[in-house]
Structures are given as structure tokens and as C-alpha cells.
């Protein structure tokens, strides 16, 4: 990896930000925010999408209108998209491929010896 900057860009995967003119504020004048909604108490926040807003307070209100108006959630987080560092598509092979053939990394690879009762 050659030190290029990536951002999550609306949940559509990594997008190159290095060398791209004027990424912030976004093309419509307002910065982009990633939205995370917790559907119920006890669950974790899930990424649901992204939106534009002039600041964090308005992003939270826009998220309420865009993503929770059918009672989808009990809690919302908004995060500036620019604050997210994402893995790069070019790094996909070195990042993820080596895991494919390492079956011994899964506990099911190992036979449990007889007589071991508290494993």
C-alpha cells in the first residue's frame, strides 16, 4: 500500500481520497456522515447508510428523518465519513486471502482427545 487515503464514502466500500480534488465538503456543499442505528435495547448499532448534513447536530436530525421514521431504532450514531479509515480493494488479497486455506485456525480442525472433559 502506497500510503493512499481511503474513506468509507457512504457505506459503498473504500473510495480513494488521495489526489481527488476537494472531497470535503462534499459535492453538494455539506460533508458526508455515516449513520448507525440500534434497533432495540441490547443489540449493537448497525451501519444503515449515509447522508449529508452541515454539522453533527443536523446529521443526527436528518438521520432520524431518513432512517428511523418507521420506528426502526432506539438510538442513532452519526460519524463523519472522513473519520473512517477503510481497507482498500487493492489490499484485498494480502488482507483477506491468506485466511482461506488455514483450516487449522478454526476450532473444528482439531480432534478432541477422549477423556478431556472440560475443553
Amino acid at each position, binding site marked *: 500500500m502506497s500510503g493512499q487515503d481511503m474513506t468509507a464514502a457512504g457505506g459503498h466500500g473504500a473510495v480513494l481520497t488521495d489526489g481527488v480534488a476537494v472531497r470535503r465538503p462534499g459535492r*453538494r456543499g*455539506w460533508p458526508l456522515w455515516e449513520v448507525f442505528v440500534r434497533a432495540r435495547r441490547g443489540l449493537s448499532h448497525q451501519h444503515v447508510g449515509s*447522508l*449529508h*448534513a*452541515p*454539522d453533527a*447536530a*443536523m446529521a443526527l*436530525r*436528518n438521520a432520524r*428523518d*431518513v432512517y428511523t*421514521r418507521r420506528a426502526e431504532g432506539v438510538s442513532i450514531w452519526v460519524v463523519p465519513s472522513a473519520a473512517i479509515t477503510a481497507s482498500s480493494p487493492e489490499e484485498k488479497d494480502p488482507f483477506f486471502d491468506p485466511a482461506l486455506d488455514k483450516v487449522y485456525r478454526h476450532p473444528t480442525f482439531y480432534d478432541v482427545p477422549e477423556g478431556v472433559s472440560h475443553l
Partner: protein
Amino acid sequence: MTTPATLPALSAYALSLGDDALILGQRLAEWITRAPQIEEDVAIGNIALDLLGQARVLLTYAGEAEGAGRDEDDLAYLRDDRDFRNVHLVEIPNGDFAVTMARLLAFSAYQHELYQALLGSGDATLAGLAGKAVKEVTYHRDHATQWVLRLGDGTATSHDRMQAGLERVWPYVDELFDADPAAAALPGVAADPATLRPPWDRYVDQVLQQVTLHRPEPAWHARGGRTGLHSEHLGHLLAEMQHLHRSHPGVTW
């Protein structure tokens, strides 16, 4: 069609509140696809739908209280402008975004005090509606407040345009709190408009003061909406709102 003056007080009162919500809902819907951002499109659309929901309850109840067999659709789509009881504030055109937010601040702050008062109404339908609607209009008021603060505290241009928006709508504010014979005839049921003014003043003043916007002092005040006297703007709005239902009565899809 029955003229407002002949309606029972409860019907006239419900019609006043329902017409306010219906007409502003229609006005706000004009912003759809025209708002500054798609997120604001959705926000304004949500507010318009909240108001439409309130209008449906109130117009249905007005029809029942009238006892002449008119339902919400009859009242929304088959009355002429002289039979509408809304205040002028909700019928004036949207203007620019600052005018729309100035109006939404004034009207949602009024509705907030109105529904707070109606929580204690002796009428179960009005009290029930108020319980649901007060949460909705608290959000509407917050949305308008956020924008008034940002435009007031933004650039010199945005501050000036926000101030111009306030100047545009302020002549229509007093009418919200004018004495209404229908409300006066319903003690313990209706909210006395005059009692809503002091808390409205406190809320609006503290918003404007935060961002050095001046509270306008208009030289004239609109009146007469509650008795069916409207500006030309309402006729054009009704033509668009009622056209489909009048051309194809009862049409559905």
C-alpha cells in the same frame, strides 16, 4: 355548503385547528424535490405528513360534531375558500427557505403551546390527539429552531435573509392568538388562544436572541381567517389541492 358561522362551536373549533394543519401541510409539500438537500426534502415531507395526520383526526371530528354526514374528504376537498377557518399564516406562499423556516418556527411554537394546553381538555378526542401531536410538533419546532439558529448565525447574507424571513411572516403572528368565538364557547374543552402567547413569546424570543435576530415589529396584522376571510393565495392552493378529487370524485388507486 355550510358557512362556518352556522357550525356548532365544537365543529368550528376542530375545523380551525384542522384547517391550519391541512393548509400548512399542503404548503410544506410544495417543497418536495425543491428543498436545498434531499435530507431536508425528507424532513419537510415528514413534518407535512405529521400535519396531515393531525388534520385527518380534526376534520373527521369536525364532521362528526357537525352531524351533517360530512367526512374528512368532504371537508378537505369540497369546501371553498370562504368556508376554510385557517389563519393567514399557513396560507401565505413558502417564499425562500428562510421564510419557510420562520413560518415553521412561529407556527410550530404556537402548536406546541396549543397541544400542551389541550392535554388537559375535557374532550377526550382533543386530549387524545394532543398527546400524540405534542411530540410531533416538538420535533417540528426543533427542526425550525435548528435552521433559524444556523441561518441567523451563518454568513452576513444568511443572517439578513433569515431576518427578512421573520419580517415576512410576523404580520401573521398575532392572528394565532386572536380571540376566537368558537374557543370561547368551549370552556374546559378548547384552549384560550390568548393564554398561549406568553410561553410562545418566551420560546421564540430566546431563539432569536441567541443569534442576534430581531423580533420584527410589524405595522399591520392579518385577521379574519377564522371567519373565512382569506388572501388570494388560499384559492390557488385549494385549486391545486382539490383539483383531482373534484374532477374525479371518489377516485382511488
